[in-house]
């Protein structure tokens, strides 16, 4: 009898080769490709906080206003996605399976470097579609590095090149409008990595609101609350919606940060997040 081989933990070999897409005619309408917009990741004193607006757009229209763009991949890794929603969600689902497949078949967890390389391969594999004007997506990958004992943020370009950020990362249509603001906060207030969770959350919510002001495709927080998840040594925390409202109220009332209630976070199982 012939059992299939394990291919040393490479999940992609179990799947059929992706369909090739012929080059579309010039000027093809790509409004069928729904896009996620602005995602932010900043370090804080216990890990990495990810905040994302909930808007997904297709061309000039708002396709969905409750999109979840922060996808847990395992207990210590999340990706925040911008760009083509279909591709990004599918690749998030792929990565979750690939990491688990590797760990279960090889009886050891995939290293952080291995996970980052897997992400690069996925973006690289998506290049033919991107060249045809559809399916482009850019992730920000946040991880808690158990060996180094710190949160780490990685961002990618469309070719799959990986860059590590010392303090923050952002992607999506609204990110360029606020890129300088991150530096301003670090220089004039303090590094994000020295902030606690509520300080970091406050800064991220303000940044997201600025992005929404400057980018029509980015939803702010006035109608639908953003989503926020933190990657920590102990796992992934889902920030409580009610507490986020309290922080927002304090921001709008110009409240003093130290008087804010502490942010309540609930630890979640990555499996409970439908991807």
């Amino acid at each position, binding site marked *: *009898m012939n*059992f299939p081989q394990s291919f040393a933990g490479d999940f992609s070999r179990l799947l059929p080769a992706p369909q090739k897409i012929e080059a579309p005619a010039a000027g093809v309408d790509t409004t069928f490709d729904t896009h996620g917009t602005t995602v932010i990741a900043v370090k804080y004193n216990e890990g990495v906080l990810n905040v994302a607006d909930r808007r997904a757009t297709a061309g000039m229209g708002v396709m969905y206003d409750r999109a979840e763009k922060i996808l*847990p991949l395992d207990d210590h890794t999340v990706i925040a996605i911008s760009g083509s929603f279909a591709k990004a969600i599918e690749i998030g689902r792929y990565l979750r*399976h690939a990491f688990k497949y590797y760990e279960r*078949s090889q009886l050891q967890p995939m290293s952080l470097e291995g996970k980052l390389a897997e992400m690069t391969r996925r973006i690289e594999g998506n290049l033919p579609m991107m060249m045809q004007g559809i399916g482009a997506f850019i992730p920000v990958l946040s991880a808690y590095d158990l060996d180094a004992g710190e949160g780490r943020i990685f961002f990618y370009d469309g070719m799959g090149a990986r860059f590590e950020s010392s303090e923050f990362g952002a992607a999506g249509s609204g990110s360029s409008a606020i890129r300088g603001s991150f530096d301003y906060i670090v220089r004039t207030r303090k590094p994000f990595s020295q902030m606690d969770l509520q300080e970091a959350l406050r800064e991220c919510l303000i940044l997201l609101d600025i992005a929404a002001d400057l980018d029509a495709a980015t939803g702010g927080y006035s109608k639908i609350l953003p989503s926020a998840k933190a990657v920590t040594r102990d796992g992934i925390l889902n920030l409580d919606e009610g507490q986020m409202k309290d922080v927002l109220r304090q921001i709008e009332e110009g409240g003093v940060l130290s008087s804010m209630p502490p942010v309540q976070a609930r630890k979640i*199982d990555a499996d409970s997040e439908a991807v």
Partner: protein
Amino acid sequence: MYSPYDFNQSIAHRAEYVEERLKGGAPVVGISYDRGVLLFTVKRTQRKIFEIYDQLIYSALGNQADVEAVRLAAIDFAHQEGFVRSPDDVSIQRLVGFAVSPAIKRSFGDPMSTPHVLRAIFAEIGKRPDKDSYFVLNYDGEFSTHTRSAAVAASTAAEEAMRESLDAITETPDLAGALTHAAAAWRIGSNTRALPTDDEDEAATEDEELDPLQEALRDGHLEAGILERDTPRESKFRLLRADELTNVMNHG
């Protein structure tokens, strides 16, 4: 010329070949407890209890390469199905009934290949203990289904004795209770395995008085793996730590 007689002889020889090699295997016990599913055994050097998928766990006794081949085939099938369809579509019934068992059966009946030397136990965690499922797979591809508990051992006699012990459990235990029941069933399975034949009876020594589990731990280690019903961790599976197994020996 290959005759029906040859076929029957071939099957009988192969069964004899496998049974002979399984004789030294340590039993594996599966028990549902209030918060999860437990698999319990004694290992020598190699790990014996494995996670297959989110809700599936596996162990086996037999040839290490065969145990490994089935493990990898099960993981491949589960992950392929889980990705292409959904994790909810990966079930113990589909895995054992349609993926693993037919392949084992083909291998066993093929006179040109070496049969797999293993008896395997698969467990699937449900929302409640009465929804947990166990599949026990034999080396010839036959499998049986169980709820609440199951066992595999070196012989069918040992398995029956273990099942009798496990069936006597009336209440759903907690983890500590499940470990105690598992250890008791393991002792029975191990003792039945070691029952002397008529010829060996006279050669029986004072070793018979020894706790079989204690004896097995002279050159082995306890191994217990669980799937937890409610956990905030990504994986429901974990192997129990040594300090979580210390009480097992106190209930001999």
